[in-house]
């Protein structure tokens, strides 16, 4: 719109208009200078460092001076053809899909049930209790898991024993790894994630419920036909954002839960990047793996957003 109106004006006038706007905004440029400098140095400069993925890093030469790989995608082909890569990618996908399927619906159900509660005090209390684990750090969470499942002192095994069963070495058996990872995640994040849906539900107008009650709709019907459609946009947006990180499992928790017995199912891309890069000092290769990961996530985000736009008219952009 602004471009159209400018077209009529003479170029000279345009020039001075631009200069005047810039001049008027000088205080804003001054204010945003420091944050911008931080971004450029710590966020954008490392993006240039991504060229490492196509180079053979030499400490003496630095990023710029290191030679390009021959062929250019050597690190990528090496990763994608390595047998370990298949394992790492499958592990990452398995954990994040399982995690998404298990932890996505629970907060929605919690929010809807809380919203239906008539007692305000009970609602507040349950919300407060379920939100609490959000404040527990990953280190403490993982150590609680280790403590509770300890083969002789953990209360889980003590309970199994007192019920007449055999104690189970949960952390020492790789079959349990994914379940423990995912369900402790549900334990920790459900209350926190429910808040968004509660906020969306609190925006639903009371008139709709009243009208539904007059029409004789049961609670289940009200949930299906009023609550769910009202929070559908929130659900879709969060789902898109989640699928955008389908190929990334956060480093902190999984790294702490790793041990020699479960490494074959617990090694994911983020820990692999760390191990290859910082432990083995294989900088170029590790950067290539990280870049591959970021690109897949970006593509997933774009793809899911496009599908959501097509199907429901709701999207991130």
């Amino acid at each position, binding site marked *: 719109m602004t471009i159209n109106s400018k077209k009529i004006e003479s170029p000279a006038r345009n020039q001075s208009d631009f200069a005047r706007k810039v001049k008027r905004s000088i205080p804003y440029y001054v204010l945003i200078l420091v944050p911008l400098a931080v971004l450029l140095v710590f966020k954008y400069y490392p993006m240039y460092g991504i060229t490492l993925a196509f180079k053979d890093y030499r400490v003496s030469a630095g990023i710029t001076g290191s030679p390009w790989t021959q062929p250019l995608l050597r690190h990528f082909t090496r990763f994608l053809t390595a047998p370990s890569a298949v394992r790492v990618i499958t592990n990452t996908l398995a954990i994040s899909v399982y995690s998404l399927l298990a932890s996505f619906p629970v907060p929605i159900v919690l929010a809807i049930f809380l919203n239906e509660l008539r007692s305000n005090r009970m609602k507040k209390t349950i919300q407060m209790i379920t939100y609490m684990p959000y404040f527990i750090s990953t280190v403490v969470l993982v*150590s*609680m898991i280790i403590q509770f499942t300890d083969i002789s002192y953990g209360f889980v095994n003590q309970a199994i024993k007192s019920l007449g069963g055999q104690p189970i070495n949960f952390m020492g058996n790789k079959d349990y790894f994914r379940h423990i990872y995912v369900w402790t995640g549900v334990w920790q994040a459900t209350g926190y994630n429910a808040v968004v849906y509660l906020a969306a539900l609190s925006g639903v107008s009371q008139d709709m419920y009243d009208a539904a009650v007059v029409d004789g709709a049961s609670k289940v019907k009200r949930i299906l036909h009023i609550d769910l459609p009202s929070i559908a946009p929130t659900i879709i947006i969060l789902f898109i954002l989640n699928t955008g990180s389908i190929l990334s499992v956060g480093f902190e928790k999984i790294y702490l839960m790793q041990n020699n017995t479960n490494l074959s199912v617990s090694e994911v891309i983020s820990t692999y*990047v760390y191990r290859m890069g910082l432990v083995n000092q294989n900088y170029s290769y590790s950067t290539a793996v990280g870049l591959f990961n970021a690109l897949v996530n970006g593509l997933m985000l774009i793809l899911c957003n496009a599908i959501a736009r097509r199907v429901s008219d709701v999207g991130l952009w």
Partner: protein
Amino acid sequence: MQNLRVNKRRNRVRQSAGDRVFDVISISLLLLFAVIVAYPLIYVVSASFSSTDAVIAGEVWLYPVGPNVEAYKAVLDNASILTGYKNAFIYTGGATLLTLLMTILCGFTLSRKDFFGRNIFSGLILFTMFFSGGLIPTYLLIRDLGMLNTIWPLILPNSVWPWFVILARTYMSNSIPEELYESASLDGCSVYGMLWYITLPLSGAILAVVALYCAVGNWNSYFDAFIYLSKPELYPLQVVLRNILILNSMDIGRVADLRNMATRQGMTNLLKYAIIVVSSAPLLILYPFVQKHFVKGVMIGSVKG
């Protein structure tokens, strides 16, 4: 309004059988979930106050058995935990202050409509939310800047956090009326004056939200410290905790008189519960008082993601 309320109350009495079944099911599920969430926390606290023998024998289920504070004495004697606490306070405080400063600067400028080129700047900030240089390039940069084993990589690189900037910008442009700025401008107030005299005093609520999220996040994270710090005297609490709780490197020689292996293991076990309580207590005690700010943050954030 009055009428509606009466109607609602009457409906409450005349609930259909189906609705009552629904209520019973939903309330029992809610209570069950609350118990599942709360029980591990209660257990940790109870175990930490119990006697070693009771914990080993599995006598602790809900409340402390043989109550005592031995484990806490031992924990508070531990020098590395105290250093970790001190470091975590410094890093968290520094990161929170810097983040607040950056959030104010970005949020204010991006909320002003007469800021020429603000879309470019907001694009530059938002882009970092979806794409980053990754672990290795960032690490190499920090190393080349000579920032390894300093406080800087823990507080500076993430101080411009896009989500906080969006939050602040949305709040500032929605809740501060444009007329205030206009009249101030007519009175000859500069842009800096507007930030100082109008925006800052009116943004207390959102800055509290940002400070809380930032403080909790920093207090609980260990990754940056784990990557960039290698001197034990610089470790923040979470890294100390990782070494003690997960890698099992605890020096309890002085504490347990090593009567036998079992007692020693039992004592270590008990100490861990006490450490978990001591390290999580500050946030969990603070939390009920600040809960409404957290909820508010999500509400503002969900208006315009």
